[in-house]
């Protein structure tokens, strides 16, 4: 960088988020970054010695932005997280300190909804299993591939009718599915049936799509009882957070045939899903990459830069988190 570098605003990167690695060069032409992972110092020491006057941070969705970390950033006034989820940030501490938080907002919702639908069709119609069957050369010798199940007419229960849940509902309606939901707040302008407990939702559906944020209330929300209520024809799709489901119980229910199948983008202990899931033909797994499309990463880069530019020029943030 040239001598003008010192004029660029300084930002500490925590994670780092995938988008930062992909767009490092482009980001670096606009801002100056502190990269803790390049240092041998442990993070607390690095921040204490290098980030005393840093006003802005970019963080990834899996970086635990705790009060302890924030304590080492005394000048921090802005956090831009690359995620739509906020469960990794101590929002109470941010509010107390007056630190503004910007996030990905609704930007990823179409991509996440697309994957939810893709996983559901895959589980019901055995797309990945069929692809393996053909690519392993089995079709000529073993002409019978097991029948799948029709998507149209399924009673889909959306858990969390926020931006993502809404996009999932819109898509599945076009496939002839019935839509109902369970959400923290009933949505008055929505014509879908709402249920006041997840148990009621599961009892009235044969597909559950989890689209809610992870909070204390939603931790292990989908437990054994809920899965039994969903029933042995039931399919669960999780594109929210792994801990919304009791993963051990999910595995047990799948092994015992107490539910019919699952499509999962998230797990309790990433990147190590329960290995029993790998053997099951009625399960489709993806590596928490619902937002990792080229288009979303390009858009996210623009959004993060836009938020940082706004902050450093005293303008309103593009995607500040809503007040709760």
């Amino acid at each position, binding site marked *: 960088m040239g001598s003008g570098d010192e004029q660029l605003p300084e930002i500490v990167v925590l994670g780092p988020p995938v988008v930062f690695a992909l767009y490092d060069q482009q980001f670096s032409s606009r801002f100056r970054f502190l990269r803790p992972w390049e240092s041998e110092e442990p993070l607390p020491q690095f921040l204490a010695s290098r980030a005393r006057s840093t006003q802005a941070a970019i963080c990834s969705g899996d970086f635990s932005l705790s009060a302890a970390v924030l304590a080492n950033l005394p000048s921090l006034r802005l956090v831009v997280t690359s995620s739509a989820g906020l469960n990794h940030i101590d929002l109470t501490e941010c509010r107390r300190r007056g630190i503004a938080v910007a996030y990905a907002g609704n930007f990823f919702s179409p991509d996440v909804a697309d994957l939810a639908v893709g996983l559901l069709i*895959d589980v019901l119609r055995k797309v990945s299993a069929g692809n393996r069957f053909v690519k392993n050369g089995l079709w000529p010798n073993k002409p019978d591939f097991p029948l799948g199940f029709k998507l149209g007419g399924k009673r889909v229960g959306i858990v969390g009718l926020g931006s993502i849940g809404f996009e999932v509902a819109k898509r599945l309606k076009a496939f002839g599915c019935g839509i109902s939901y369970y959400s923290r707040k009933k949505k008055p302008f929505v014509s879908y049936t709402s249920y006041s407990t997840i148990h009621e939702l599961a009892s009235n559906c044969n597909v559950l799509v989890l689209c809610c944020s992870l909070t204390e209330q939603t931790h292990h929300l989908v437990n054994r009882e809920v899965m039994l209520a969903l029933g042995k024809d039931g399919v669960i799709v999780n594109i929210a957070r792994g801990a919304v489901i009791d993963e051990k119980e999910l595995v047990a229910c799948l092994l015992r045939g107490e539910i019919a199948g699952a499509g999962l983008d998230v797990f309790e202990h990433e990147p190590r899903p329960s290995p029993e899931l790998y053997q099951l033909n009625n399960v489709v797994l993806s590596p928490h990459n619902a937002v990792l499309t080229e288009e979303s990463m390009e858009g996210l880069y623009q959004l993060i830069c836009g938020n940082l530019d706004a902050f450093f020029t005293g303008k309103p943030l593009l995607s500040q988190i809503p007040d709760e």
Partner: protein
Amino acid sequence: MENVGVMMTTPMSAYLEQQLQQRFTLFKLWESSHSLADSVKAVVGDTKIGADSKLIDSLPRLEIVSTYSVGVDKIDLEKCRDRGIRVTNTPDVLTEDVSDLAIGLALATLRKICACHAFLTTGSWKNGDFQLTTKFSGKSIGILGLGRIGSAIAKRAEAFGCTISYHSRTKRQTTNYRYYSNAVDLAANCQILFVACSLTNETRHIVNREVISALGPQGVLVNIGRGALVDEHELVSALCEGRLGGAGLDVFENEPHVPEPLLELENVVLLPHVGTDTVETSMTMADLVVANLECHFLRKPLLTPVI
């Protein structure tokens, strides 16, 4: 009707066999000998073995061909017309399943769902992230053949914010989708091309080298129609050489044989012709086949006649 001879051409559905056995005298082409030919008044065929000229000629008392499919490309329709043989198929009841699978194939191909699953089950995730995939929502969709299935694909794709254009034998007056008068122009103006037309002499290899080139290195082809609608040889070389971005295929020119080079490609999703293979629809299709036969032998109007 128990004395009416009905011949199934190939094993296609245990349920259908059972239903036919209950009502008629069922012959199985894969087991029967030629001497029973005089007893056969009806043929039940499917997408693998239909009723070609040779079979029809061998059955002097044939009155009706009832196919367990919507496609009639495996039936010698001209011969049937000449001999006054009725033909029925199974339209409408399978439209949803086939169009669902078309979208499922598009999503699986663009979002690399199958490859992601393998990435996890081989333990690769702990070593790093999977590569970026390609967004589906909002993309431009082209549909070859805006019939029942093509229209159902369009309706689903619209819910993803996709723009729809199409090429069909005739322009539809009742739709706002953009019409192109030929397949090349359609392919040049869309990113994902769905092949949903019926196979006839005119549409054989409608997706040829020119169309594939027009679709291009960012383009994806999804075929849920018939294998022979696509020049498979050209398709394979385009995919291997990177001149086409990806493909989701449920049908092939010479099923169950799939060109070997396709088996290695991660940007290709292959299915063993399962477009209608759900528990629900296979039963509904079978019921429709049986109902058409009953109507014919009871001299009632056929439910879903082609001829």
